[in-house]
């Protein structure tokens, strides 16, 4: 693609200082535009990809989307290594430097306040899963209601035991949900001791793997950098502590602080 055809401005993030990224490969096209004491990390992109009409087509091109979304995150990640950032959403385009300057300039004070607040902090994601099969295996220990029915079954005639088993089967789903609620509150309380802020995201109900797991927490935490190691150690302890429910945690980060940009909302 001829560089001359790249007329649109793609913005990755803004920072308070101009990042020095010369040593990083793959950022040749990236440059920084100073706007009212802020630096916008931008590159020129082609209308073939990012015009209003063409981007709609590109979004259904999965390999293109995968490559460019990851590139968006990669570039912001590189800048995050040296500066606090306010990340922009994927595919935010300005038609000219003047247009970009107008927008960033209008909100410069809000951006600066947010950048100062986010300094020395990182966003971490935690998704917690329980293994339903494991919970059923240990249900007598985990649910007093089921334990009581089990005791009655053992002491009952075959006929009455049959009815009680059906009753047990009927309440099982409700009991598992109750266990999920109890465990998720406990996990969240433990994990939320260190972070400055948190955001709870919607739980995914889709089966993303063959394992019989249910998501019980989907959260983002804003942590001071010096607290990150302790936070991760805490999550590891929780996994060991909750072996009987097959707890697994997906802990990922540091993400650009997408969940904690509290401006312009």
């Amino acid at each position, binding site marked *: 693609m001829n560089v001359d055809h790249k007329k649109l401005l793609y913005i990755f993030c803004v920072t308070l200082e101009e990042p020095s990224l010369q040593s990083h490969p793959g950022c040749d096209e990236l440059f920084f535009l100073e706007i009212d004491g802020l630096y916008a990390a931008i590159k020129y992109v082609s209308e073939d990809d990012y015009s209003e009409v063409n981007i709609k087509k590109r979004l259904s091109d999965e390999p293109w989307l995968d490559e460019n979304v990851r590139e968006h995150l990669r570039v912001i990640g590189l800048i995050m290594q040296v500066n606090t950032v306010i*990340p922009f959403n994927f595919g935010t385009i300005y038609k000219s430097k003047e247009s970009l300057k107008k927008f960033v300039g209008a909100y410069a004070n809000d951006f600066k306040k947010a950048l100062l607040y986010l300094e020395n902090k990182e966003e971490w994601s935690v998704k917690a899963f329980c293994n339903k099969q494991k919970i059923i295996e240990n249900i007598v220990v985990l649910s007093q209601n089921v334990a009581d029915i089990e005791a009655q079954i053992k002491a009952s005639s075959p006929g009455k035991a049959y009815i009680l088993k059906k009753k047990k089967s009927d309440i099982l789903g409700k009991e598992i949900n109750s266990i999920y609620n109890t465990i998720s509150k406990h996990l969240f309380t433990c994990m939320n001791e260190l972070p400055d802020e948190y955001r709870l995201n919607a739980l995914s109900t889709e089966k993303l793997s063959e394992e019989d797991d249910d998501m019980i927490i989907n959260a983002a935490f804003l942590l001071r950098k010096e607290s990150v190691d302790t936070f991760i150690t805490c999550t590891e302890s929780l996994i060991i502590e909750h072996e009987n429910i097959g707890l697994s*945690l997906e802990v990922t980060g540091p993400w650009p602080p997408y969940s904690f940009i509290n401006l312009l909302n």
Partner: protein
Amino acid sequence: MQENLYDVNKEITILDVLDRVLTKGVVITGDIVISVADIDLIYLGLRVLLSSVETMEKRRAVN
């Protein structure tokens, strides 16, 4: 996989990335932005991609 992204126990999937870079963050009025309707279409389209990723990589470490 992001080299700079510390990953405790899993691969970063495209869905993980999209959940952040499309739906959160500053409410921006760029000259061109991806609309909410387009975002919905992306997620619908990704069902196929997600399935194929599932068969290639283990998404989560068993603890």
